[in-house]
């Protein structure tokens, strides 16, 4: 019953969301509230769907496959949800719901919000499509949907020259990167004559002797994935682009869009070109390179954070640092196997979840303070914690989570990471994790201190105010606490997603695809 519901919702929710995006400008011109209501409807629908889908996957214990048009998969396109992209989808659905709700408050900073909401719904479609799709070319299309809405949203405050410049840099190099992914797809289709991810994993095994095409494909496609995830040499656009976007969009970009890059890297290197596959010996080399890049961007982000005075820029560098950490954990597959690998992947998933929620909260809270202060400078925000106490609390909690304090989920994710590195026999990396945490704690102290704990001398005393947004922010940061408690009490919560990237999980992924293909029949099934 649940599975059937999830199956039908999985097929229909993205076309419906796209229809909402198409309809927004039509209705939005007539009524002022309509755009927000439509976006909220789409976000609610997405949140419910992702929950149902994840529940069905988690309860059923096997991936859920939706073949579009009733075509058996390598002929048609399919959506395939296992626990890994299921949990990321769940995260995306709820965070984007919070962001859409927050946008209502942010509306006063914008003129003609109709375009903003249309692009936001487009972003939603792109995010979920990237996560759920089981077809490599469909991933290309969805990355483009995601990118074009992100470009448009970054340039949304077009009165600011910096915003337009950041968007142009982001869009120009992003277009080159996605073109390179298309080249990777050409290589893949030319050599393996299929585009389906599960089918690629299956077919690739026959090509283990000649790993060169797979290496080409992976290296071309890694460019766009690391670009989207802002990993070290490709990180240059993020500190400009994320702060210049409207605040809720900064939250979506920093919290969710970067996840897509990490997700796609994991999907390509574990599921498609994973175990005893076409990539062969090169897989270790690619993973090692990714590990080093992740290491570099973690350190770079942490150190760059120290010198920032602009709060949104500080948060952007923190994103680079944390994505680097998650990538480090995720690319441990070259050295570890079995328990240590599961531990590392669990750490990656937990870290992505913790980072997404807290970074979204932080950006949204910073939006509140920027609105109060009229500036993005940290010094101008002194003492504003007294004016918006709930937001200050939410902000502090989220910072503590990012720094890895104890009852929060961030602590457990870093602990898992530490353990995984030690188990894999790489104590250097464990040291890097500690170093990054320590350095970034220094960086986080500055905003915490200046907003929550300091006074502005000679400022008139204003009474504390509470709006609906503050409640939303507190709820989001409280969820971090709850998640931390859950993870602390039963460490197995995130192991199911991690297990779906192990060899057994990949077998399940392929088996689900084969079953669907057989059940749909036809002469070529």
């Amino acid at each position, binding site marked *: 019953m649940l599975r059937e519901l999830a199956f039908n919702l999985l097929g*229909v929710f993205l076309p419906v969301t796209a229809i909402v995006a198409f*309809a927004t*400008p039509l209705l939005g011109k007539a009524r002022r509230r309509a755009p927000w209501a439509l976006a909220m409807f789409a976000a609610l629908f997405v949140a419910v769907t992702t929950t149902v889908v994840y529940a069905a996957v988690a309860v059923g214990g096997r991936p859920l496959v939706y073949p579009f*048009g*009733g075509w058996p998969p390598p002929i048609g396109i399919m959506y395939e949800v296992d626990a890994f992209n299921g949990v990321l989808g769940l995260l995306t659905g709820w965070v984007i719901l919070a962001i859409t709700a927050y946008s209502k408050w942010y509306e006063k900073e914008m003129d003609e919000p109709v*375009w903003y909401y249309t692009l936001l719904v487009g972003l939603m479609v792109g995010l979920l499509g990237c996560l759920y799709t089981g077809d490599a*070319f469909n991933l290309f299309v969805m990355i*483009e949907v995601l990118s074009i809405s992100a470009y448009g949203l970054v340039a949304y405050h077009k009165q600011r020259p910096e915003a337009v410049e950041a968007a142009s840099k982001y869009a120009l190099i992003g277009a080159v990167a996605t073109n390179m992914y298309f080249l990777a797809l050409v290589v893949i289709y030319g050599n393996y*004559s299929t585009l389906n991810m599960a089918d690629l994993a299956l077919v690739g095994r026959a090509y283990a002797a000649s790993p060169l095409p797979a290496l080409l494909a992976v290296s071309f496609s890694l460019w766009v994935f690391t670009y989207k995830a802002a990993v070290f040499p490709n990180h240059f656009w993020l500190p400009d682009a994320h702060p210049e976007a409207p605040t809720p969009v900064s939250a979506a970009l920093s919290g969710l869009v970067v996840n897509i890059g990490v997700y796609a890297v994991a999907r390509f290197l574990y599921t498609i070109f994973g175990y005893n596959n076409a990539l062969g010996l090169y897989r270790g080399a690619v993973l090692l390179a990714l590990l080093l890049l992740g290491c570099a961007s973690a350190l770079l982000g942490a150190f760059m954070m120290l010198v920032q005075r602009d709060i949104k820029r500080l948060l952007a560098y923190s994103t680079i640092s944390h994505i680097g950490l998650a990538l480090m954990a995720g690319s441990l597959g070259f050295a570890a196997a079995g328990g240590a690998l599961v531990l590392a992947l669990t750490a990656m998933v937990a870290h992505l979840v913790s980072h997404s929620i807290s970074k979204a909260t932080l950006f949204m809270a910073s939006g509140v303070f920027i609105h109060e202060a009229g500036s993005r400078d940290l010094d101008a925000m002194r003492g504003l914690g007294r004016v918006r106490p709930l937001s200050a609390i939410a902000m502090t909690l989220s910072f503590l989570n990012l720094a890895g304090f104890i009852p929060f989920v961030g602590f457990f994710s870093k602990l898992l990471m530490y353990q995984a590195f030690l188990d894999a026999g790489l104590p250097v990396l464990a040291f890097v994790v500690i170093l990054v945490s320590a350095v970034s704690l220094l960086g986080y102290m500055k905003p915490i201190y200046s907003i929550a704990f300091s006074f502005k001398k000679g400022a008139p005393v204003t009474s504390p105010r509470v709006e609906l947004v503050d409640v939303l922010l507190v709820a989001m940061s409280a969820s971090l606490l709850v998640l931390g408690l859950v993870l602390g009490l039963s460490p197995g919560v995130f192991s199911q997603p991690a297990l779906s990237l192990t060899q057994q999980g990949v077998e399940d992924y392929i088996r689900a695809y084969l079953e669907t293909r057989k059940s749909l029949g036809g002469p070529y099934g």
Partner: protein
Amino acid sequence: MKRVVSLAVLVTIVLGMSLLLALSGQSFYPSENLRWLAIVYLNTTYNPYLPDFTVRSPESVTAIVWDYRGLDTLYETTVFYLAIIAGLALGRGVKRLNQKPTDESGLSPIVKTVTKITGPMILAVAASIGLHGHLTPGGGFQGGATAAVVPVVFIVVFSSFYLLWKGVSSQRMLTLRSAGLIGIGLTSISLFLAGLLLGLPSYVFQNIAKAGSPLSMPYDVHGALLSGTLWWFNLFEFLAVSSGFTLAFIILMTPEAEEKW
């Protein structure tokens, strides 16, 4: 002169390198055989012997674009739509001129008259390309892109005010575009909704009945092959694309009043 020399060098490099490669047996001559997947597509695109595993469209590219991989195409149009929305967002708050068109504006009267005559012909040709998309090369996007010649040429030859004066405003084009895209979206889920109502299994983007799901769009109306949803997709895409191009050109080409900043 420098350019000529470097061009000659470039061409010589290409010719010589390929001669070397061809001599060393490293050729890029394509195979005579097709991939498995391609043969599946070619065999099932119009195949009366497989009544529940075919698209019933002789044009296999359109069949792939709108049926086998219809999801890609839906989001591809979404990308184009979002790009134009982003453009509108970038152009908000800009005052655009709105004058009455005169004889002076635009190009010479000969070009104007020629454009007037050829406009309907080009639209008819474009509609033919678009509406025969499931039979001959063409389809919604191709037809729409051909039809976009008309607004471009009208804007350039007369002026963008002329279009406004004749009632082609950016607001109307946006409405038409949204309507076309909503049509595409509804077509894609129409059989799914019908299946829900009738209690029959059916899929999103379903076109012709499959073995497990008996619902099917009408694909043959009095001897005219419509290929089910393909015809509707082409129609709506034609509307959406032609109005989208018109919209983009109108907002880019209309002269602006003085900027504020």
